[in-house]
Structures are given as structure tokens and as C-alpha cells.
């Protein structure tokens, strides 16, 4: 009998039809189970409540889910390369604070994205050049950015430019604008992940790290450091975009609006089947993960259940989904 090394557990040799059915071996990760969960919640809600399927509620659901969807997609870019970005919550708060500073929108909006790109670039440089673990690098960035945000805007207030408010609350051809936000974000992230070499390189880097061969992508000619840096920049810019959306929704700057958002984003990405060890993940899985969380929140509102049981259910779903996809390697 061959020895079962920690990298190759003996039980993985047995055929597991449940795993096969759930698409365990795919590079996209386990996304069918969360899809079933999301559909089950939606079905349950449409049977038990009348409001759920109303057009108003569905548009409302999209508006509620949009910041999480945007942040989670950004987070996925970093998780696919085996990293983690804990600074996105602070970046969201910072973006709303900057938009509420007062001034013309054509200065404020570029400023938000420039600053976010800068934060992402610092994260990326600290991780790739200075050899710091991503959790630590982005955790300290979270503290620093939150501190700066609280200096800019100690309590919530101020007004954001009109164009930001209209872009969230307005309608086009009778359809609320958040729907178009969603389409634009999906197109952009699909282009980055599947329509450009960038996404392919990210999967190559993450796959190498996940299989314990850190330099493998580099040896195949992928500019590892540059792509990792760009992944952090992408993640930060997506967080800034979520911040712009939230600023338009709450019409002011709020230093606490992004608090713990990074954990929600990581939860959504993980529910969607993306592996934290890198190399395995998908865009549609991430969107499904964010939708599961939004559906839970929406359902609790409609059925008047305690909002606190929602947290427990969220954690239980997360445990169930990640518990079903065991990896070859032990670790973070």
C-alpha cells in the first residue's frame, strides 16, 4: 500500500461520485452547490411571501447586493493568486468619505480611483517585493486607511456629487440604473478574467502556489510580481467602485460603512467555490456567493425573522460549502 503523505491523502484515491457530481475537480471550484442553495432560498421565498417576486423587490435585491457583488469580484482576483485583501472595507469607507468632501465630480471620482489604485499598488509591492504575508500587509493597510478616513470624516455626513446619486437611484428606459451597474461590472470583470491574458496568468500563478511550486508560473514566462501587483490594484479599484455605489445610495460619506465588509466579501467568494489556496475559482461562483448572502438578508426582511439568525445561517452555509470541498494540502 502506498504511504499516504499529507499532500496526497489516502481517501482521495476512492472515487467519490458526490464530489464528481458537484464539479470538485474543475478549476472553477464548487459552484453548483451554492447555485442550488441560492435557487432554494429564492424558491422558498417566492412560495412563502408574495412580495419577493414583485419587480420592486427584485430591483431592490439587486441594489442591496451590488456593493457586495462588486467587492467580492475584486476580492476574487486576489484570492485566485493565493492572496487575501483585508483592506477593502477601509477602501470603501475612504471612497465615500472622499466623494463627500465637496467639489466637482470630475475631480472627486478620478481621485477616488487613483487613491484606491495607489493603496492596491502599495499592498502589491509590500507582498511581492518586501516578502510580507498578504494577511499582514493588507491588515496594516486596513488600519492606516481607516485612520485616514476617520480624519477626513469623523462621523457620517457631507453630500456626494449629484451625478453619483443619480447613477444609483435613477432609471433608464424604466429599468433602475443598478441593473446597468451590474452588467457593466460583469462585462469588465469577465474581460479581465477571461478576455485578457491577465486572468489566465492569475490562474497560472495561483495554481503554482497551490501546488507548492511557487516559481512555476515565473519559469513559464509569466511576470509573477507584476501580475500579483495588478491583482491587488484591481481588487482595490473594485472596492472603490463599490464605495462609489454605496455613497450614491446613502447620499453621504460614512467612515463606518465599509466596516467588516472585507469579511463579507471573503465569505461570498468562499461560498462561491473559490479556494483560498489559489488557482481555483470563478466569476459566476463569486456572483452566486454574493447573491446567496443578499438573498438571506432580503428573505429575513420579508419574513420578519430575527436578523441575528441570518448571521448563523450565513456561517453554517459557509461551513457546509467549504467542508464539502476538501483539498489536497493542509493550510491557510
Amino acid at each position, binding site marked *: 500500500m502506498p504511504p499516504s503523505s499529507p499532500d496526497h491523502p489516502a481517501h482521495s484515491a476512492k472515487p467519490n461520485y458526490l464530489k464528481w457530481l458537484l464539479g470538485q475537480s474543475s478549476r472553477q471550484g464548487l459552484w453548483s452547490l451554492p447555485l442550488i442553495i441560492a435557487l432554494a432560498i429564492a424558491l422558498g421565498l417566492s412560495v412563502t411571501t408574495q412580495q419577493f417576486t414583485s419587480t420592486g423587490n427584485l430591483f431592490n435585491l439587486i441594489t442591496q447586493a451590488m456593493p457586495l457583488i462588486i467587492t467580492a469580484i475584486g476580492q476574487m482576483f486576489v484570492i485566485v493568486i493565493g492572496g487575501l485583501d483585508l483592506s477593502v472595507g477601509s477602501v470603501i469607507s475612504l471612497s465615500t468619505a472622499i466623494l463627500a468632501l465637496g467639489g466637482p465630480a470630475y475631480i472627486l471620482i478620478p481621485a477616488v480611483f487613483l487613491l484606491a489604485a495607489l493603496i492596491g499598488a502599495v499592498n502589491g509591492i509590500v507582498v511581492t517585493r518586501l516578502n510580507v504575508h498578504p494577511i499582514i500587509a493588507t491588515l496594516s493597510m486596513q488600519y492606516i486607511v481607516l485612520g485616514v478616513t476617520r*480624519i477626513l470624516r469623523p462621523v457620517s455626513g457631507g453630500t456626494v456629487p449629484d451625478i453619483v446619486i443619480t447613477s444609483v437611484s435613477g432609471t433608464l428606459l424604466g429599468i433602475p440604473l443598478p441593473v446597468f451597474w451590474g452588467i457593466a461590472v460583469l462585462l469588465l470583470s469577465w474581460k479581465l478574467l477571461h478576455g485578457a491574458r491577465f486572468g489566465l496568468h492569475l490562474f497560472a500563478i495561483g495554481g503554482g502556489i497551490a501546488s507548492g511550486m511557487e516559481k512555476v508560473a515565473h519559469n513559464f514566462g509569466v511576470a509573477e510580481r507584476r501580475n500579483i501587483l495588478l491583482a491587488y490594484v484591481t481588487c482595490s479599484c473594485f472596492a472603490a467602485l463599490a464605495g462609489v455605489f454605496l455613497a450614491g445610495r446613502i447620499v453621504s460619506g460614512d467612515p463606518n460603512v465599509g466596516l467588516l465588509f472585507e469579511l463579507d466579501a471573503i465569505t461570498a467568494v468562499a461560498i462561491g467555490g473559490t479556494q483560498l489556496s489559489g488557482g481555483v475559482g470563478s466569476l459566476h461562483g463569486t456572483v452566486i456567493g454574493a447573491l446567496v448572502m443578499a438573498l438571506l438578508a432580503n428573505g429575513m426582511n420579508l419574513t420578519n425573522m430575527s436578523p441575528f439568525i441570518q448571521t448563523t445561517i450565513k456561517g453554517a452555509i459557509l461551513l457546509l460549502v467549504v467542508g464539502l470541498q476538501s483539498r489536497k494540502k493542509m*493550510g491557510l
Partner: protein
Amino acid sequence: MILADRTWQRLRRIPPSYLVFAALLLTLWVLRPHMMNPNILGIFIRQIVPLGILVLGQLLVMRVRSIDLSGGGVILLINYYISSGLFPGASMMTFIAMAIATGLIIGTFNGIMIAKRRVSAVIVTLAVSIVLVGFVQYLSSGKPPGDVPAMFAALYNTKLLGVPTPVLLWIALTLLMSLFLARTVFGRAVASVGENLTAAHFSGVAVERTVIVAHILAGLMAALAALVQTASIAVGSVRVGLDLPILAVAATILGGVVFGRGEGGVWGPFFGVLSFALLFILMTTLGVDEPGKLIIQGFIILLAAIFYGVRSAKP
């Protein structure tokens, strides 16, 4: 030249926390000499004991390349047991036994999920924390529960030989952990698993068991931290201790222990926690406001990690 190399190598092994601690102590001594009073320092250090105890578990799991973010949920749950009045007439020993049992159960669950199921440690412990926090908030409907039995506060406020009892407990636990890691087979196993998982496995180290035991001990430490934290605030809360696990990670890194590497031993992270206490004292006496504290804290963690990352870079 060789001598210089050796000195340099020895210097490079010093965990960042010793340097940060020395620098902060010097700054405090220069700027606010009257604060260098054992009584005042003792009170401040007493407040950081829950973090200090949590760090003992965190450094253990980080040395076996894992992480434990569930401490926040454990602390919240145990705080709820004790303060909610759900168990009227329970003695202090009962509460302590219940807390320790909770810590052991959650630690075992974490360990089995991570070592046997090979699920991501970040996600499992985060999910456990989410479940526990949601559970406590559901039971209490988001309202703070009642008061903590007076015995806890009474014990918390005692002193032995002029040192607050919680601080003595912390030092004793740190000493135990340091002996445990240095003198037992388990300590060797932890070091070898951290160094190289596959090599450890083929050298006959029970890798899975080592990781599970590390997580069980981390759960135990979280339970002890919860008891001290509950005694220190003396009331129930639905928010207590939620930011402690991530601070514990930061203090551990500051102490020279990173995922898989344990050069800082147990005393590096110990001084990492003390550095946080000193930083808090210093910034409070200097009147730095809350945003300033966040920024300074962020920079200190970042600089320590960069200092550590650059020197441990592989050629």
C-alpha cells in the same frame, strides 16, 4: 569578517517586538517619566492580558502553518454564558469548567476540519466565529445580557506580591507554553511541521495529530482569554472581543512568529503584546486621537513585518 557575520546573524534573529518594545519604553521614559510607575503600568498591562493569552494559542497554530480567527466567537459565547443568567446559581468553578469545555470542543472542531478535511483554516475559523456570534446575538436579541457574578471581578482585582493576578496568570501560561514547546516531543513536532509538512510526515511525525492538538490548545487559550476578558469588563456584551483574533495575529507577527516559522519563540509574541500595551499607554498620555492610533498601529505592524520579511527573504 566571520565574527561580524555571526553578530549580524544573531542580530537578525531578534524578533521585531523586542526592538519595538525597547523603543516605546524609551520614548515613554523620555516624554512621560511619571508614567514609569509599576502600579500604573500594571493596570494598563492587566487590560491586555486577554490578548496576551489568546496570542499563546495563535502562535501555536501559526507555527504549524494554520490560523485561528474563531477566538472572537469563543469569547463572546463564554461571556454570554456567564453574564446572561441562563444558569442561575452556577458556581464559578462550573462556569470555568463550561468555558474550558467550550474552548476544547471548538478547538477540536477547527483542528479536525483543518487537518482531516483540509479545509482552508481562514475560512473554517472565520465561519465558526460567524456562527457563534450570530448564535449569541440571536439568543440575546442584540441586547447586552446582564452582569457577571461578582466573584469574577473580585478575583480579577486581586494582587499577588504586588503584581495583578491576571498578569501573573498570563506570565505563568507563557512560561508553561515555552517549556512545553522547548522540552516535549510535541514541541519538536510543531517545529518540524512548520518547517516542512511533507518532510515531517516522512520523518514519522504525526502531522494531522500535531495540527489538531495545536488547534485544541488554541481553543483552550481562547476560553481562558474569555474568562479573563469577562472578569475585566464585569458585564455582558454582544460585541466584546471581536477584534481580538486579528490583533493576536498582528502581535504574533510582531513577535517574530510567521506562518511556519517560530524564531521569536514564545517570548517574542509576549513582548509583541506588551508593545501594544505600551503603544496604547503612550498614545493615550500623548493625547493621540483614535484615527492617529489606527494609523500608528498600522505602520508599526507593517514596518515590523517588512523588517522581518526582508531579512527572511530567500535568495
